[in-house]
């Protein structure tokens, strides 16, 4: 049976266009619009229609997410947030997009023009393509690749390349520092991210996202808490969100690699930043929150988007709760914290699968029961190993150059001299 005909929307369009297709006739479709022998045209047209729909939905989703983030941010700070354009300020991102599009485009003199213009496009494309393999609901997907998760990992790495390209092409000192940080962080977090999925793959026995969702009789966040935590934190770092947004640390690098971008090129980077959050939330939902699965009267697509919204809210929550880390802290966290946790997770998952190969639902619950105590124990141990060393301010040496404000009253001798 053809996989693409399992997609209900695809089937409805394709089977009304193409004639003499046995699979369509078997499903009770009658006369077709196009003459015989044009199945390829019907396939292409249907594909373009569906993909256009999905891409539009993603772009609208990004606008919605920008609005959502700004409103939630405002609530965290006890403000009202954007409320002028449209009901509840819903049209504010649209106004922003139009404004960005019609701004003057200024490129620095000594920039590398080709790379400078290519980088924003290369930043957006991979994040859009991620959505091609994600199952949004029962029979709602664009392409059900049998190597789905590998494809996502491979493609999202490209956006790191785009950051470096933008940073280097700008010919700006601050941008290049930002680009170097981006490389160090992206490659460091790539490894725990890739390794944390292995537990999921062992249980589901497939790389296809559709199969992974179907095998989640228990959501994998319960069966694989370590994998979830590592994947969530690593994808936060990969999408350059606070507290891991060192590449555009405003207080140090102005805007990092965005420094010399303006107009729509800046707009595309801005779009990509929010699209990365959407893509990350979609992947986390699919891998760990049992994707589109839910209880019956509510459609599967609604379940998927509800879960995705929940993940997005947590991402926003984290953004406005934690301050930014330093680069040494971040790299140490990736290599000493998350990597260790993935090794523990991998070993434990391998042992558990050796005991229960191809686990049933009951066995999955038992795995969860074993995983959670180990999860807390290993976090405690790793916390001890990494250690918390509060930064000590040397008041005697530094105080002479830069007086540090204290609650103590000033020494009497200084006051008397003046």
């Amino acid at each position, binding site marked *: 049976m053809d996989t693409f005909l399992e997609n209900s929307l695809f089937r409805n369009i394709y089977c009304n266009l193409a004639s003499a297709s046995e699979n369509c006739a078997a499903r009770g479709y009658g006369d077709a619009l196009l003459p015989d022998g044009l199945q390829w045209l019907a396939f292409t047209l249907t594909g373009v229609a569906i993909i256009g729909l999905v891409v539009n939905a993603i772009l609208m989703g990004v606008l919605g997410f920008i609005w959502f983030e700004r409103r939630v941010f405002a609530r965290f700070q006890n403000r009202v947030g954007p409320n002028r354009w449209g009901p509840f300020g819903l049209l504010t991102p649209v106004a922003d997009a139009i404004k960005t599009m019609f701004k*003057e485009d*200024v490129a620095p003199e000594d920039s590398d023009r080709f790379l400078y213009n290519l980088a924003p496009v290369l930043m957006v494309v991979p994040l859009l393509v991620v959505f091609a393999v994600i199952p949004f609901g029962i029979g709602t997907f*664009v392409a059900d690749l049998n190597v789905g998760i590998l494809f996502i990992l491979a493609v999202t790495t490209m956006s790191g390349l785009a950051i470096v390209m933008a940073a280097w092409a700008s*010919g*700006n000192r601050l941008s290049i520092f930002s680009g170097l940080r981006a490389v160090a962080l992206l490659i460091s977090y*790539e490894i725990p991210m890739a390794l944390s999925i292995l537990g999921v793959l062992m249980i589901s026995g497939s790389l296809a996202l559709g199969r992974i969702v179907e095998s989640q009789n228990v959501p994998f966040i319960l069966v694989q808490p370590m994998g979830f935590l590592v994947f969530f934190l690593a994808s936060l770092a990969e999408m350059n969100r606070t507290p891991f947004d060192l590449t555009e640390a405003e207080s140090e690098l102005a805007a990092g690699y965005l420094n010399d971008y303006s107009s729509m090129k800046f707009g595309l980077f801005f779009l990509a930043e929010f699209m990365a959050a959407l893509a990350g939330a979609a992947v986390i939902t699919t891998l760990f929150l049992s994707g589109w699965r839910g209880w019956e009267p509510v459609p599967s697509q609604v379940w998927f988007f509800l879960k995705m919204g929940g993940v997005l809210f947590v991402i926003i929550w984290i953004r406005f709760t934690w301050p930014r880390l330093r680069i040494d802290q971040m790299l140490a966290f990736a290599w000493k914290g998350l990597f260790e946790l993935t090794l523990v997770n991998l*070993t434990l998952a391998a042992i558990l699968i050796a005991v229960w*190969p191809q686990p049933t639902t009951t066995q999955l619950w038992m795995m969860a029961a074993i995983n959670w105590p180990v999860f807390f124990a290993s976090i405690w141990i790793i916390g001890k190993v990494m250690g918390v060393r509060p930064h000590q301010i040397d008041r005697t040496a530094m105080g002479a150059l830069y007086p540090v404000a204290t609650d103590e009253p000033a020494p009497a001798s200084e006051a008397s001299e003046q």
Partner: protein
Amino acid sequence: MLEDYFRQYGLLFLFAVIAVTVPVGMLALSYAASFVRIRPTRQTPVKRTAYEGGMPPFSPKPSRFNFRYYYYALLFVVFDVETVFLYPWAVRYGLLSKQFGIFALAAVMLFLAVVTLAYAYAWRKKALEWT
């Protein structure tokens, strides 16, 4: 079956084409707006300098940066290859352990032990430290 396999990649290719068209179209629309005088183009030499905190940049592209980045690049290569080895194993592991029992586990534990040893060595040699 094979046809179905390639159809999925055909759809993916179509998706990639459209995904390239969207940002390029946005850039083109923005560029076209400068012809109908919606988007201004009034460039001055000062505007066209790189923004480095407001001071005029005093040299072209910086060519020196912290050598620490190389350590992480090397470590990345080592451990990413490990990932490549582990992925095919993880997908088939359920079937393998059904067939071969404890042997499938032991083989990979040996591999992971070697990797962990390398990791411990890197840590001991302070390759994971920033300063």
